[in-house]
């Protein structure tokens, strides 16, 4: 990259199922003020603002202009990006390029969603082609249920395997003061929870959350002056290979596989299981915590569950996944991918509190969204060469 760039500040709102105490603009402002305070910067120090959400959840068009009182963008370059579920990770990738280019030195990046104001499934249903796909795939859960069924039938993976992954994420969330759902559950509780869309049950699935996350990017001209240990960005890749759900191959998650291979190639990663200290994955339901490990090259096809059962991905394991509790605990959709970025940054900066992975040096985050869009970023506490 032309200039090396890093995350130097992170702010998250209080995440909850319904933040009826604030408007969308106030919710955004809460995250922005916390990120600025975290980096010890003021609005005046910021060169520009990038913001994203999913339009149809709040029903606001041109959200970057509507929310300008709260997003810090008045009189500044203000940009909106949106790519569905990946919006948050797409924003992190934009923060990376816009600062690495030298066009911006310090950039405020904001993801947010006030899902309580939306009909989430109603809005997501309109993502699909009105002629070919919409009658078959209603909302997000139905498509994921198809993926889970295909995976189970191909490898003999069970609902119990997935439940174990849900137990892990929900246990991790207990130690994250920002998490929306902070209740540990057992495998039996997951298995006894009601079906939403067979084989996905309530406790296998992410919630819908009101929340915002703001992350401050600064390139090498400013990063170390702001944060003593910035979280340097080492790679940012993505893939989006399909526009129609009917065209998908349901296994493997090819978009994530290709994005990961591109990043590993750039960084010379050969054994990702050994070479990362933690991952914050946009796994919106428990089964993804099994099969997508395979796309990331962490396990052979059909072997993802074994890593999870063996405790490899638990806190204290060889490669903790989702120390924050992940998407199963907190899901303000447009912010979700950016929370993954913020959490990875806090980890490699050594500032993740009770959820800190001791000695974390290198982390990986992903984003997942519409028609299997995958984003991926790699962070390190070392300045890229």
């Amino acid at each position, binding site marked *: 990259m032309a200039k090396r760039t890093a995350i130097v500040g992170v702010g998250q709102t209080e995440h909850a199922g319904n933040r009826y105490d604030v408007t969308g603009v106030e919710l955004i402002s809460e995250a922005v003020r916390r990120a600025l305070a975290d980096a010890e910067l003021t609005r005046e120090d910021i060169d520009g603002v990038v913001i994203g959400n999913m*339009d149809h959840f709040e029903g*606001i*068009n041109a959200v970057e*202009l509507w929310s*300008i009182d709260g997003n810090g963008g008045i009189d500044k*370059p203000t940009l909106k990006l949106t790519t569905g579920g990946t919006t948050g990770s797409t924003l992190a990738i934009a923060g990376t*390029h816009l600062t690495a*280019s030298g066009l911006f030195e310090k950039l405020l990046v904001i993801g947010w969603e006030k899902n309580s104001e939306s009909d989430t499934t109603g809005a997501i249903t309109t993502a699909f082609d009105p002629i070919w796909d919409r009658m078959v795939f209603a909302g997000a859960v139905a498509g994921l249920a198809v993926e889970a069924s295909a995976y189970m039938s191909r490898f003999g993976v069970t609902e119990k395997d997935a439940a174990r992954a849900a137990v892990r994420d929900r246990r991790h969330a207990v130690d994250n003061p920002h998490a929306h759902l902070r209740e540990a559950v057992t495998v039996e509780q997951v298995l006894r929870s009601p079906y939403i869309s067979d084989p996905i049950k309530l406790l296998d699935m992410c919630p819908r959350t009101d929340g915002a996350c703001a992350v401050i990017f600064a390139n090498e001209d400013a990063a170390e002056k702001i944060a003593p240990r910035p979280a340097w960005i080492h790679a940012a890749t993505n893939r989006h290979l399909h526009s129609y759900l009917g065209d998908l191959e349901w296994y493997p998650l090819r978009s994530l596989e290709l994005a990961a291979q591109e990043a590993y190639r750039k960084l010379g990663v050969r054994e990702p299981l050994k070479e990362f200290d933690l991952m914050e994955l946009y796994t919106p339901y428990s089964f993804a915590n099994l099969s997508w490990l395979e796309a990331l090259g962490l396990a052979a096809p059909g072997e993802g569950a074994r890593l999870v059962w063996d405790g490899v991905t638990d806190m204290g394991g060889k490669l903790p996944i989702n120390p924050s509790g992940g998407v199963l605990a907190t899901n303000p959709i447009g912010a979700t991918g950016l929370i993954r970025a913020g959490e990875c940054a806090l980890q490699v900066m050594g500032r993740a509190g009770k959820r800190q992975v001791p000695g974390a040096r290198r982390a990986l985050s992903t984003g997942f969204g519409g028609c299997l869009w995958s984003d991926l970023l790699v962070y390190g506490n070392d300045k890229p060469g």
Partner: protein
Amino acid sequence: MSPGRVAVIGVGRSRPAFRRPESGFAELVHEAVTACLEDAGVSIAEVGNIVTCSNDFMDGRTISSMAVGDAAGAAAGEGKNISTVEGDGTLAAYYGMSRILSGGYASTLVVAHAKHSEGDYRLITNAWFDPIYERALGLDWMSAAALQARLVMDGRRLCVGDLDRVVERNRRHGAGNPEATLRAGVSPEELSGSPMMAPPLRAADISPLADGAAALLLGSEEFAGGRAKRPVWVAGAAFSADPRMTDRDLSGAPALRRAAESARRMAGLEKLPGEVDFVELDESFSYQQPLWLAELGLETLDDERINPSGGSACGRSEGVAGLDRIIAAARRLRGDAPVPLKNARLALAHGSGGPCAQSHCVWLLGN
């Protein structure tokens, strides 16, 4: 940084027409991308990454970016890195440029689309406004602009005749531009008989909404060096946003002034007047032209140097509009424009968006 390092290598547009009922919006995207790559002489395999420009309200779909990935070439080869900006296409192009200057990619394909014939733009732009406090007032793209038009006309002492001159000039210029959707001059009778839409805005003052898609291929100096026969270089680019329309003096457009200042600094110019040979401005309404020119300090430009393509007044597609201005400027700088303009070396292309153009993006392009 050295801003001379990114070039416009190819430009392409869908066939101009107000209504394209035979094509879905993804097909319009494919049409523009195909034309752009053909113009550049570059295959999709050589394209480094893609930035699309979509709006969920325009497309009537959530994650509307998802619907155009295929058409833009996102799955070509081993798949390409792709992202999506929502807003004017000049902003998507700006992000596309940053992805080259970051060292991430050698080239970026940028494509925007809009299919106005499938939606109700007044309803779509009513959603720009706060659902609790503003929407019920009936504010939208046109009614909000009517308020601004009054202030601009009063403040700048403009009469209907001044607006007539703007419309007449844009339409006269557009008549000679094969890429304009509306290719016909306007008569005094047509202007005087133009129906009132939202006083003081008459139908003739409003840039007509058209279906369309436009694409640009941007490349690094190295990428352009081997390929582009006639590269157009980005001298500077910048954008800015103003407070909400209810919180600012609508008789000015400070965001445009700031964006132009930043672009000028990036280009290493002392001032814009005398340096900019022609402008391609995005005007949704005729009253905006005198305001934009004043904020840019370019009021003294000759008639032939203001929107020589005809500008947005000859067909405007949301999101596409600013890319269309870049395309028109690039074509002229390359010497492709049908009506020649002497000494066309540095162009200012512009995009705008939001209520009363709350957001502005300025590009300085040179040959």
